[in-house]
């Protein structure tokens, strides 16, 4: 069974540009979570989507946004990129909205802002 898949693996953008990251959850999972893992800061919760709706949002500015598609895949958009947005962006999924304490991560997308 395929795990959580993310693309692209690596992305280099210039400050001020927009980045789009994509995630496919484990088959049968409806909830998708996004986390940022920046050097020295640990994993920080970004967003939670379930059944196409945003259910929860972490302490990040509005330029971090996303959506979940009818097939439960998701994308994370980061607008007006800043240097400090350079980080590993991790997508995770859980079976449903009642299973959010057991989430399974993908390999992540490395975003570098120069």
């Amino acid at each position, binding site marked *: 069974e395929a795990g959580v898949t993310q693309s692209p693996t690596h992305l280099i953008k210039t400050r001020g540009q927009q980045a789009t990251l994509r995630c496919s959850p484990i088959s049968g999972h409806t909830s998708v979570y996004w986390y940022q893992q920046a050097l020295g*800061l640990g*994993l920080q919760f970004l967003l*939670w989507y379930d059944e196409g709706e945003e*259910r929860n949002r972490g302490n990040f500015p509005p330029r971090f946004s996303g959506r979940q598609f009818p097939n439960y895949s998701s994308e994370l958009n980061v607008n007006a990129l800043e240097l400090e947005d350079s980080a590993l962006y991790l997508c995770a999924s*859980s079976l449903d*909205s009642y299973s959010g304490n*057991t*989430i399974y*991560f993908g390999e*992540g997308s490395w975003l570098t802002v120069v």
Partner: protein
Amino acid sequence: QKEVEQDPGPLSVPEGAIVSLNCTYSNSAFQYFMWYRQYSRKGPELLMYTYSSGNKEDGRFTAQVDKSSKYISLFIRDSQPSDSATYLCAMSVDTYSGAGSYQLTFGKGTKLSVIP
């Protein structure tokens, strides 16, 4: 005070040793406690999941939660070089209860090296 504190290490042990990894936390509302293992440049892998206080064992891994002390531990018996990774503790307040749920709070991770 940070919500979750975890000694970043690095921790270096010889093969076969018993490893003890720990986290302390300040939010008494945390009820669910998880341990993740993260190999270099990979995503975190869920190792153990515990609800409330007590012990849970899975093979060479034992997770302990002491809610009265706000302290959780992960023990690794007969450690192997393949256990070399960063170990992250994570915790959350509650199961599904509408808005605000499932915001896992992670420690910064302890880097473990098991020397052959």
